[in-house]
């Protein structure tokens, strides 16, 4: 039905009609398809409008040149031509409310409540947003055991290792004999792709300091350390500034707020060794010793810094403490799931549209994090897996995207929550290569104290590298599994115990990819260089020569406007031609 209202006619509706008639005759469709002219449709500004019935599709046809294509696609192949379909103009967009944007709306801020709102170098701005109110409360209205009770009631857990309840660690430390006790804030964030601690310290350093003050009061510690990596210059600067300002206000030092409570805080800068994230190594480093873990027990809560009872918590835990005291344990416990309370901060990175720092209630599904908050996968690619917990964590495949994010579900999936790195991977990611990458990291960061971790990870890495290079053998998978389990069982500290996790989870969920590498000498994602070849698809190649020009090894030949050829003996598989080609004429096989 062609609109022949005067608006469409002046836009050339009759020319369109003639072109249709001609094209239909040419294709011998004139008996099947009837052309009807109609009165004004009311979309005069966008005409000529053609509606196809009974399909009910409105086309907006500006020129008769598109008619042959339209007839062929729509009438012969039955595919509506998307780019010609009329879309009514949407109302001029207004700026949405921030909480209607799912990136922000699905988040729940506790540790990050002040992010982007306060100037972190102004203590007054923190105080203005009820900062140090919780400290005033514990110093005037609560006994240390009441503080511990409140934290217990909140259900706040430590999300690394065995996810102990926070107050357990506090209580053990508090109940140790002696009066010299220490607390430490672990800000030695070493996972690739993780920046939660850094961002919390940068946005809201006083929440960490206040949390530590409350912890110190509960535990009976007089001095605290913040162990932060020197690679975080801005976080370090902001932290130092915060401590100076807190000291000037007498919020650190002697007789805090006139209540007789004393606590001092100092900053220790870490040199960036991953193993220092492990508490006994961190304490060793703090004492100027080699950063190597120690056999537990004794636990740091019994014998830590200088052999004295020491409590360690990470940045996020400390930052949660003032809010729990201020707003109450019941409020905190109402957020999250039965077993995992409160929120978790994740750094969302990798192949996802909105990368950034997100704080979500426990129990949210991975799908909500990746699609609603993260905005999905860029370039219309397919989601493949998500890696949580950094090098100590594991990969969760697409089939499990609806699992709830809490400690128990992630552990069941072979993953860990850990400090909160979350790396999204798309279909172009080779899972064997991912496992190899993480193992290369842990292998390099192994402190070397215990044999399983020092040598075991090395042997695993060698075997994985062989597989990626196309030299893998059938027994490699069994070998990897066996050695992984023994490293897990026999390593001294968490670094070794969790190092095989990326391999174990990829073997569990992506075993077919390992098999393709080993048996078919093929990398399904097209990543492992030894197993791929770049080839030109002759049908698509227009001979523009763009690939030839960018090839650094002169591996492409071909005359202008003729089909080009990649010489495999010269190709170094850099992928430049693949990125450059605008005609989809190069494929990875």
């Amino acid at each position: 039905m062609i609109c022949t209202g005067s608006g469409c006619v002046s836009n050339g509706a009759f020319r369109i009609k003639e072109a249709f008639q001609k094209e239909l005759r040419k294709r011998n469709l004139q008996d099947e398809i009837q052309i009807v002219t109609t009165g004004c449709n009311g979309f005069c500004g966008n005409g000529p409008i053609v509606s196809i019935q009974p399909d009910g599709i409105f086309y907006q046809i500006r020129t008769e040149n598109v008619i042959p294509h339209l007839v062929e696609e729509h009438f012969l192949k039955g595919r509506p031509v998307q780019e010609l379909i009329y879309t009514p103009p949407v109302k001029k967009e207004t700026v949405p409310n921030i909480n209607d944007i799912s990136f922000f709306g699905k988040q729940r801020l506790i540790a990050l409540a002040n992010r982007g709102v306060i100037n972190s170098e102004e203590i007054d701005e923190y105080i203005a947003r009820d900062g140090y109110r919780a400290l005033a409360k514990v110093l005037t209205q609560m006994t240390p055991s009441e503080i511990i009770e409140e934290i217990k009631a909140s259900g706040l857990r430590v999300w690394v290792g065995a996810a102990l309840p926070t107050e357990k660690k506090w209580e053990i430390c508090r109940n140790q004999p002696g009066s010299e006790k220490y607390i430490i804030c672990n800000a030695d964030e070493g996972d690739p792709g993780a920046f939660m601690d850094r961002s919390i310290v940068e946005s809201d350093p006083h929440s960490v300091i206040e949390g530590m003050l409350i912890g110190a009061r509960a535990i009976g510690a007089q001095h605290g350390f913040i162990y932060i990596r020197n690679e975080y210059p801005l976080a370090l600067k902001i932290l130092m500034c915060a401590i100076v300002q807190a000291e000037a206000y007498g919020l650190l030092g002697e007789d805090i707020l006139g209540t007789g409570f004393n606590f001092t805080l100092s900053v220790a800068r870490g040199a960036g060794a991953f193993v220092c994230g492990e508490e006994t190594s961190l304490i060793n480093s703090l004492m100027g010793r080699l950063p190597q873990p120690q056999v537990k027990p004794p636990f740091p809560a019994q014998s830590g810094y200088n052999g004295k009872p020491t409590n360690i918590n990470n940045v996020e835990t400390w930052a949660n403490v003032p809010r729990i005291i201020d707003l109450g344990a019941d409020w905190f416990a109402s957020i999250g799931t039965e077993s995992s309370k409160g929120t978790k901060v994740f750094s969302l990175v990798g192949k996802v549209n909105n990368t950034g720092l997100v704080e979500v209630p426990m129990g949210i599904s991975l799908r909500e994090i990746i699609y609603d908050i993260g905005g999905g996968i860029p370039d219309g690619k397919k989601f493949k897996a998500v890696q949580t917990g950094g090098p100590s964590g594991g990969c969760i495949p697409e089939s499990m995207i609806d699992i709830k994010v809490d400690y128990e579900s992630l552990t069941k999936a072979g993953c860990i929550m850990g400090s909160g790195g979350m790396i999204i991977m798309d279909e172009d990611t080779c899972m064997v290569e991912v496992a190899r990458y993480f193992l290369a990291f842990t292998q390099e960061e192994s402190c070397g104290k215990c044999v399983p971790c020092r040598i075991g990870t090395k042997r695993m890495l060698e075997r994985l590298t062989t597989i990626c290079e196309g030299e893998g053998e059938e027994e490699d998978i069994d070998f990897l599994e066996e050695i992984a389990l023994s490293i897990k069982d026999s390593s001294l500290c968490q670094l070794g115990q969790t190092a095989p996790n990326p391999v174990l989870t990829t073997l569990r969920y992506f075993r077919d990819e390992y098999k393709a590498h080993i048996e078919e000498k093929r990398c399904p994602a097209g990543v492992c260089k030894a197993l791929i070849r770049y080839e030109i698809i002759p049908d698509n190649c227009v001979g523009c020569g763009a690939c030839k020009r960018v090839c650094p090894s002169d591996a492409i030949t071909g005359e202008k406007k003729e089909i080009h050829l990649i010489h495999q003996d010269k190709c170094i598989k850099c992928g430049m031609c693949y990125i450059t080609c605008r005609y989809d004429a190069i494929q990875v096989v």
Partner: protein
Amino acid sequence: MKLKLEDLDKIRQRMKATTILREGAGRVKVTVHMGTCGIASGARDILSTFKKYIEESDAKDIIITTSACAGLCSCEPMATVELRDEPPVKYIDLSVKKVARIFNEHVMGGKIVKEFALAIGSERIS
């Protein structure tokens, strides 16, 4: 100055006056997000450009301040413009050129530059 318990409340009251732009302390507050992510994508230039325009305009009622990461690192540099009695507006993917328009149209003219704005309002807190 060593604080006493009651001083915390005093600071709170005093700061409410300045940070929330009430009681005539300022007409506009511009916050440039200067976390590591922001600085890495050029927030320093954004801050200095805002400062330059404020100086040139000789306006005394514009508060310029900084804050850390606003969460959406992939859209840095970001800035928040808040007019008195209006919800804050977050601008994303800023450039020096965009700052010129935001300053003229929003900070001085009071009209949101819709093309560059991501959202209005404050994030829900707990």
